């Protein structure tokens, strides 16, 4: 059984109970600030480590949906790398035994192919460019919604009340970025 989450919580508790009080007494502001960051990260990691695989599969599903939406425009030339990346993404998602490295590689291939396509759009007709760009932006929204939930504990979001539930976002139930 993996104990990373439990060990992270124990380390977080040690920072809170022992390390930080000792550091506060020294008055070393840089060390105190970094110790707080370390403590916070340990708590964050403890909450997230068991969900990493699920997050990567969600991102692969969402990237695949984006690429499929681009494909559906019917404007991609033969041999377009996006088509090969879509095929590989489908194969990995359909494989229940695919490990996390395969999921991440398929995700990177899809994102890389979409970036390459966007870079070549300047040589294509304006209506093709606009359709593909709109599909790419629309396809980013579910991923951004899930990522807002993922990083919510870090405390930077200026509108925390609108952050979607993490597990719901990873299941694709909420799609508002």
């Amino acid at each position, binding site marked *: 059984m993996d104990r990373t989450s439990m060990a992270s919580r124990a380390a977080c508790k040690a920072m809170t109970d022992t390390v930080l009080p000792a550091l506060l007494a020294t008055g070393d*502001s840089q060390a105190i600030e970094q110790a707080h*960051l370390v403590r916070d990260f340990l708590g964050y990691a403890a909450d997230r480590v068991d969900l990493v695989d699920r997050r990567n599969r969600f991102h692969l599903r969402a990237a695949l949906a984006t690429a499929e939406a681009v494909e559906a425009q019917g404007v991609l030339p033969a041999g377009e790398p996006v088509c090969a990346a879509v095929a590989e993404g489908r194969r990995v998602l359909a494989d229940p035994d695919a490990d996390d490295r395969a999921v991440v590689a398929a995700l*990177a291939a899809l*994102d890389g192919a979409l970036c390459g396509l966007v*870079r070549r759009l300047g040589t294509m007709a304006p209506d093709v460019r606009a359709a593909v760009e709109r599909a790419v932006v629309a396809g980013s929204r579910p991923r*951004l919604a899930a990522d807002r939930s993922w990083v919510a504990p870090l*405390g*930077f979001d*200026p509108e925390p009340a609108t952050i979607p539930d993490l597990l719901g976002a990873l299941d694709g139930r909420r799609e508002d970025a």
Partner: protein
Amino acid sequence: MTNVGGITERPPSLQDHPSDALLAEVRERYPTDQPSQDALDQKYARRRGPGWSPTPLETIADSVRKWMRHEVGPDVEVTDVRWLTGGASKIQAAFTLRPGDGTEQRLLVRMDPPETINCTNKRTEFAVMRAVRDHLPVPDACWIDAEAEYLPEPALICGFAEGVTKPRAATTGQVSGLGTNFGPALRPSLAADFVAHLGTLHTMPIDALRPPDAVAPRVGSTENALWRLNFERQLWELDRAEDVPVMEVAGAWLERNAPALDRASVVHGDYRSGNFLFDESTGRISAVLDWESAHLGDRHADLAYCTQRLYGHYAEDGRTFLASGLLPAEDLYEAYRRTSGLEIDHDRIRWYRMLATYAAIVKTLATSVRVARLGRSHQDVLLTRLEGVVPVLLGQLAVMLEEVL
């Protein structure tokens, strides 16, 4: 490796140490002004050096003593050296300088780590601080060690400015001053100073700033906008560890829609809450800080930057969003028009807001990750925490793109 759209795509790990050929390819594809290119060239040249390791305070003290003996004279004394926190990008220490004539001065040495979230030109920072000191309250820029002749890394020595970046009793405000809540009592006077200083900055003469420290872009051309965009695109190409399709869409839109410049101004480049000091008793700004991103360019860059949502928060009514925690954006624009006499073009505000968001993503999703991955700064643990702003910024970018595509 594959070649896509004119740029050779690389496995991310190869970008840890970009080759001369890759650097030249990116430089040629995304040309920027010479001071910015110098900053980029220095960043990647230093990448070949060692990573960050703690510098003992005594090493800093000895280096500053040697430097001050050269600048001031053999009888100089450097005492009371102590560390200060320097935000995400600088290593800072305060010290007392006694030149030997019976006087003494409290000063601040600001040194770079080997690599940081900001890619900056120290000569430009120094020259701009000198140029603006007759117009705005700024720390006195005393000496520069641009080539790390005395300190372990490039450094500046500045006067020690008094004041606080947020109310001492404040419980809000993130690392690096994001989202600082000044409270309703302090806001009116701070907002008035904040806007007035920005107008003064944008209307002051720029003649004192010349190459190689700064280059004025041509008025009536898109040169400035493309220089600023291309600077960020070089960083994105060389620092990012992952492909992000929406960033490619944004880069392409910004390039297609680069606005012309109507007037060249001194641009602060990081004008927001957290980057000024104020006197809590008077509610007045005592010093404008952090000039490392300053350049000659378009005033709309600062106006768009300081009104980004990341640097603001809602007022007590829960409905009014306060730009930089001070006043609503439209009120800021109106006060700026009134005090500076300069017009505001909302199309250019929109373009520079998208560029500011793009640049913030470059910093937080590309440079911060690369610097922390390679262990190159004293604040790697803070840089990794900036992951928390990436979805907010990318969400803003997506919304802006949906409005214009």
